């Protein structure tokens, strides 16, 4: 594992079911337990190619990635810092799919 990988500074590609792909920093992708499992096992194809397929359509995957970014930026936030409510950013149309 290179030092860049350890710092979570390299890029991971997250692809949706219908062909869209989202490129995020590794430390953002690692906020998700599923993606972490994919990326941590050294011999998994996902870890080698740095591509994680997510079995959802693009709109849902996009919101999922957005949440990961949100979580990455606010997880270690100062206690007195205002944390915006992510719930406002979830459109009810995709909430059910996101939930599943």
């Amino acid at each position, binding site marked *: 594992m290179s030092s860049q990988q350890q710092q979570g500074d390299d890029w991971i590609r997250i692809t949706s079911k219908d062909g869209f792909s989202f490129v995020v920093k590794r430390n953002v992708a690692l906020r998700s337990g599923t993606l972490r499992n994919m990326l941590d096992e050294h011999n998994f194809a996902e870890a080698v190619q740095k591509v994680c397929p997510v079995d959802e359509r693009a709109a849902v995957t996009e919101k999922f990635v957005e*949440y990961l970014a949100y979580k990455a930026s606010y997880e270690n936030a100062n*206690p007195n810092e205002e944390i915006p409510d*992510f719930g406002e950013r*979830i459109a*009810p*149309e995709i909430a*059910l799919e996101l*939930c*599943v």
Partner: protein
Amino acid sequence: MTNNVRGPTSALTEFLRELGINHALIQRRGQRWQQQQAEAGPSNASTNANQDITNEEEQGGLPDSLTGEAAPDSDHLDSEEEVTTGKKRKLSKAALERQKASAKKKAKKNDDEDYKDNEEDAYTAKSLRENKSTNPKPSIGSLQKCSRCSKQFTMTKYTMAANPPPGYLCHSCAKSSGADPFKKPAAPRKRKSAAEKRTITNFQERKLPTLVFLCIKVISQHINDVEAFGDIGSVNLDRIVRALCRNRSLTPENATLFYDVRNKNINIYDGTRLEPPALTTLALLNPNLTSLRIDFCGHLNNAVLDSWSTSLPALTRVELLGPFLVRVPAWISFFRSHPGLKGFLLHQSPRFDLECMSALVTHCSRITELRLKEIGKLDDTFLPHISSLKYLEQLDLSSPGASCSDDSVISVLKERGAQLTHLDLSCHNELGDDFLKRGILAYTPHLVSLKLDNLPSLTDEGVAAFFHAWTPSVLSTLSIARAHDVGSHALPALLDCAWSTLSTLNINAWRDTTVESLVNIAKAQELRTLDIGWNRAVDNFVIKAILDGCPKLEEIKCWGCNRVTAECPRKLNVNLHGVESSVYVDAY
């Protein structure tokens, strides 16, 4: 400056505190005494004052503020405590103010502070008053006499009190006594750390909500706006129910999403938060239900079941886990109103008794699927009723309060065995080899699923003989877990008997199975799930043979198989659970 810690106190102080004697009481008593003295004669009082002055002269280094005021009476001179309280009395005005301040502070405090905290504060407040009033430090900059070397010195922030108490020490005496005058007092620092600790806990409480939690919130908010979700297929609906139940967040509000007049089938996997009104609503909004399953329906009570009796006329299959509150009359009226019931699956109900059983048989004679799992009152007397169910195909009587006997179970199988497809008699510990031979072997040729977990009296020879003799036509699920003495002979016989049709096999805790027989599991071509936990002989080669041999395999559980190591072979789409050392590998 304030000292919040109450130090060790003398036995007398403790004793007085226990009796509730405080300085106010003593003050009052002292005043009364003084009045009496004044009435008795002024000469006595003046001697008292004289005595007071000499007393102070002897002590030499008393602070300015204390001199010139009345000292305690001679009655109480013999006790240190009384002297202190005498001093307190002089300071009573200041003390009173402080008391008021602390009372205000307390009043401001939040109610949610826990009991321990309050108690701590109460103690602190008390000691605060005591210490402050007994040791009023003279103002900084004033001239003092050292209580040891009697030299005059200026009070500073670092001036230390003499030990033993009366007076203060000059800098050189303080140093020579071994104490460091510049050392910060320990107590305030301790207090600070406690406060810091508290803020840290607050910080930890702020966790980001999970995505699923947020989504559920959004769904609940928009639950009335069903259009926003679009059209949901029944398959997706079930997935959503599962997702909500997994988080135990299926509430009366969002449950309505799954209700529809056209619904024929509802599965609720966690109904913990559905209260009686919600369960009644469920029945009213889904009047055409034929199949209903609710797990964890602890809120289900008589009233709900009574409403179901009228509002769910088409119900043919009902599966309930944990309806503890339903009593006998409600069950009976439910059975009476549902003569068409075909499946009754009850798991955990301490109130279901013989009367309910006979009512079930009388009113619902077309039952094909019966489950009475973990029913405390189940015993031999239930069994004649069960055998009178003519259409019975699936029977589950596992984990009863007390085991049924060999003969009565055999008599049920004699009546109904020919058409039985599913049978679960786990945890009936009276059933043994004899039951296998005279019951299952003799009367149940068409079993698809057989579960006999936790029957400790089974023996290796008996089970082996049973499988040698038995020829089931379509057995696909077999579970004989936790039969410790079964193993080396029984497993080969089992595989010979059912290898071609078996899809689920559970031989958990068959201690003495051998590698040769375990490897033979590989010939079960239809095998999908396998539990070989606590089979001591299982090792990497056995796992490899099974993985190679069973093309349809989906899951292997090998908990407690110490010889299976992290290096054991894996296969795509096969979940291997319970490999011990893999935990450590993951940690890296």
